[in-house]
Each structure stands twice: as C-alpha cells, then as structure tokens.
C-alpha cells in the first residue's frame, strides 16, 4: 500500500513520525485527564472559598488565587525549564513523555481551574438562591445545580484547554519531550526539510479540528 514511498520515507514514517504521534497523544491524554481532575478541584475550591461562597475563607482563596495566577503568567516553555528539579523529583526523569506531563499538567490545571471558576460563577445567582430557599444543602446546590447548569460552559472551557495543551506538547517537544513538536524542530526546521515540517503541522491542524468538532457536538447535545 505504501510502496510509492522510498525506504527512507518508510523508515521515517515508522521510526520517527508514528512514535512521535504516539508520544504527542500520550502527553495530551495524560495531561488533559490529570489537569481536568485537578482543575475541577481547584476551581471548585476557588468558588466555595470566594466571597459569598459556602466555605468563605479569604486566606485560602487569596493564596490559591495567587498561585493559579502565578502559574498562568509563565510561558509554557519557561515553566517546563523552571520546574525541572520538581519534575525530576516527581517522575524521576527530566526528559521524555512523563517529564513533559508534569509541567503540562501544572500549567493546564491553573488554566482549567480559572475556566471552571468562571463557569460556576456565571450560574444565575437567583437560581442558587431559589435552590437554597427549598432547603437544599450547600453540597446539593454546588453539585446538583451549579454543576448541571455550568456543564456546557465548563465543557467548552475544557475543549479550549485541551487544544492549548496540544500546542503546549509541541513546545515541550522542543525541550526534550519528544512528540510532533520535536520532529518538526529537529527533522524539519533544523534539517531544512520543509516537507517534514508541513506534515507535522498538518497533523496538528487535523488534531485541533477533531477535538474542536467533537467538543462542539457534545456542547450542542448538552445545550438542547
């Protein structure tokens, strides 16, 4: 099927491109899953410790909010380098997929936490008040009412975050994480091989389109 390709091309596909796609997928999936989990936790914590929240606590909110903002102010590439010692401590290595997942997760967690926080805060205050007026508990109001109402908006937040994680994996590729980003830099840019660069860019475009389309589809299902 692929006999129009030369040996070199076959070799490139087999040994370099496919493993790179796999690495990108691994980084994307692990980082997304972990950051969605942590991001939800932090986002909910931000909402309930904020002014008027059910566990209002200025200190916790201020500290948490500060950390989240600090992380968000790092460009991903700087965060990856800056976190190297911590990354090594957590996963035991500073190169490859596991080493990339740590900073990617940290960066995306801050991003998702902020998105979740704003989605939850946009839930109609009158609705929240109405639910309290029926004697619902605080937990019921957050998890049964606010989550349900904010779900479509949280989902579109997660989709945006997933796409930004994908572009962050490419950046991570530039500093030793492997994946499509590293192929584009090493075999494309640094080897003056435009074809390789275009191929990786093409794959990234397809991935982004795919993620966004799936997201839009689910969003519409949820909204209707």
């Amino acid at each position, binding site marked *: 099927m692929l006999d129009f390709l030369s040996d070199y091309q076959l070799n490139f596909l087999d040994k370099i491109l496919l493993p790179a796609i796999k690495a990108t997928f691994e980084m994307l999936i692990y980082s997304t899953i972990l950051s969605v989990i942590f991001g939800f936790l932090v986002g909910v914590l931000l909402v309930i410790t904020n002014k008027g929240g059910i566990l209002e606590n200025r200190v916790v909110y201020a500290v948490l909010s500060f950390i989240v903002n600090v992380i968000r102010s790092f460009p991903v590439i700087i965060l990856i380098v800056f976190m190297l010692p911590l990354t090594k401590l957590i996963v035991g290595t500073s190169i490859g997929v596991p080493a990339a997942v740590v900073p990617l997760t940290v960066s995306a967690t801050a991003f998702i936490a902020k998105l979740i926080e704003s989605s939850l805060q946009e839930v109609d205050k009158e609705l929240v*008040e109405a639910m*309290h*007026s029926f*004697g*619902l508990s605080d937990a019921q109001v957050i998890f049964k009412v606010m989550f*349900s*109402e904010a779900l479509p908006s949280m989902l579109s937040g997660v989709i945006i975050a997933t796409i930004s994680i994908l572009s962050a994996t490419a950046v991570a590729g530039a500093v030793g994480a492997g994946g499509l980003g590293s192929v584009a830099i090493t075999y494309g840019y640094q080897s003056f091989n435009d074809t390789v660069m275009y191929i990786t860019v093409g794959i990234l475009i397809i991935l982004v389109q795919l993620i966004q389309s799936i997201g839009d589809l689910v969003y519409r299902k949820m909204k*209707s």
Partner: protein
Amino acid sequence: MIEITAVQKSFGELKVLEDINLRIEDGDIYGLVGKSGAGKSTLLRCLNGLETYDSGSIRVNGTEVKELDKPGLRLFRKDIAMIFQHFPLMSRKTVYDNIAFPMRCWKYDKQQIDSRVRELAEIVGITDKLKMKPNVLSGGQKQRVAIARALSMKPQVLLSDESTSALDPGTTASILRLLRRINEELGITIIVVTHQMSVIRELCRNVSLLEKGRLVLSGPVNELFLSQPDALRRFMLEDDIPPDPRGEELQIMLTGDDNSQTILSRLARELQVSYSVAGGKIERYRDQQLGSLVLTFASEDISRVCAYLDAQGIVWHRYLPLDSGKLQEEEADA
C-alpha cells in the same frame, strides 16, 4: 403566624432595616411595598433565613428563624417556599424535572413525586408543557413552573419577590389571579414584595410600606387607600394633581356603595354648589371598586360642603399637593 419584632439589620454603616414590627396572620396575603432599596426584599429574605438580621425577633409559627442551626434551617425552608423576579429554572431540565427537583433532593418517593408534579401542573395550568425545556416557554409560563415548583413540598407560606415585575400587564394579571387562587384554595399565606401598587391593589389584603428601611405604614389595603396618608401618596406619586388657584380642593373617596357613588349629583342638587373636577380615578381592589375624585370648590362653599359630606358619612380629605421640596430631596437621594 409570622411575628416580626424590633428587627434591625445593617450592611456596614448602612441601616437596611430599622425597628421593624409586623404581624402576619395565617392565610393572609400581605404586601410589602416600597421603592427599590427600601429594604423590602431584605426583610422578605430574613423570613426564610436567606438573610440574617442583627437584632430583634422573627418568629414563623413559633420558630425563631435566627436560632435555627443549618439542618434545622433546611427543614424549616421546606415550609416556606419562594418565587422570584426572573423565575429561575434549571435550563437543562424539562419542566417536569424542574418541578420535581426539590422533591428529588429531599428523597420523596418516585410515585409521590410523579402524582404531585401532575397535580401541580394542573393547578398552575401547564399540563401540556411538562416535557418542554424552559427556554421555549414565555415569561408567564416560566413563572407558573416556578410557582408549581415552589408549591411542590406543600409549604405553609409562599414568599414572592417581585414575581410579576418582569412580566407584561396581561400576564401579571393572570399570575396574580393564580396566586390569589392558591391562597384561597390551598390556604397558603402569601407575602408579596413589590414596587407595583397595582399588585398590592389586586392581590393583597394587608400592606406595609417601607421607606429607607423603616415601616412607615401598615394596615388593610382598602383602609389605607381611603385614609390617603402622606407616605402612601408619596409612594403613589402618579396621582399628584397641581393646585387650582380658583378655589380649594377636596378629595372625596368613593367606596363603591350607592351613598358615595351618587355624591356628585347630590352635591349639586341638594347643596346647589358648583365645582370642577380636577382629577380622579376608580380602581379595583381585590373584589371592591375604590376610587377618589378631586373636586375644586369655591372657597366660600368649602365649610358647607365639608359639613354635608360628614353628615352623609362620606370619607373626604383636604387635597394638598405633596411638599415638592421634600420630594425633590428624596429623588436626589435616590
């Protein structure tokens, strides 16, 4: 019965409720009226513990609201339902699920929920909308769903916070009729917060007027209307009539009986006085027609006319324009 005694509340420096004393009997429809910022919504929220009060006492059927702990307050709220200005519903749930939601959270059994939802849909008139989502409903229909949801756990008291303020006049009237029916047929005490005098007129038996966190008037709606206290006139503002330099103005109250309704022709016939009509209107107060006429009489006739009105048992007032200086001051405040 709801007893409010010496309730105070401030937000920082700002006093939002000051020495509120009020008693609301079971089965009443009680109006709390006032301009925005007068504290009426805050007072309403104190009744079900959505707001706290700094001092004083609020007893609902003997329970001091302030003293309830969290689980106690949750149980207490089952008996005190509430509806809101923008009829907040859960946008992703059907009408059926919205009405059933509080009962589900309180773990009612399935069959009980189902029959209750259908019964309520019947009462509020939305049986054909149960499978729809709120976004396809009109404002009035959404408020009906919200009312059904509020009634789901058979409350004794229904609090209404500006529940018709976002609706057009026709829909407002139909929601008011529904609330009145709920009060009469289910015996639920209804407390209505509104800035619309028409809501008070059509729905309430008793009313309190709040100004800047203070109760300035309380009493049966029709009696307050007939006595025309200044605070009420200030609030209703719309009917202020400019003074007539040609004579003196009297406001004659029309209570709907023959005696007051024929007063115009009798004044002319029996006293042989002439007068001009400066203003007036007749409005519906629940089941009563009440109105007033402002008539301008020549100054020399005034004492004769007053004596005649007293003898006939007609309620009347000297009609004086409101102190315009004070009104402007108030508007500047607002």
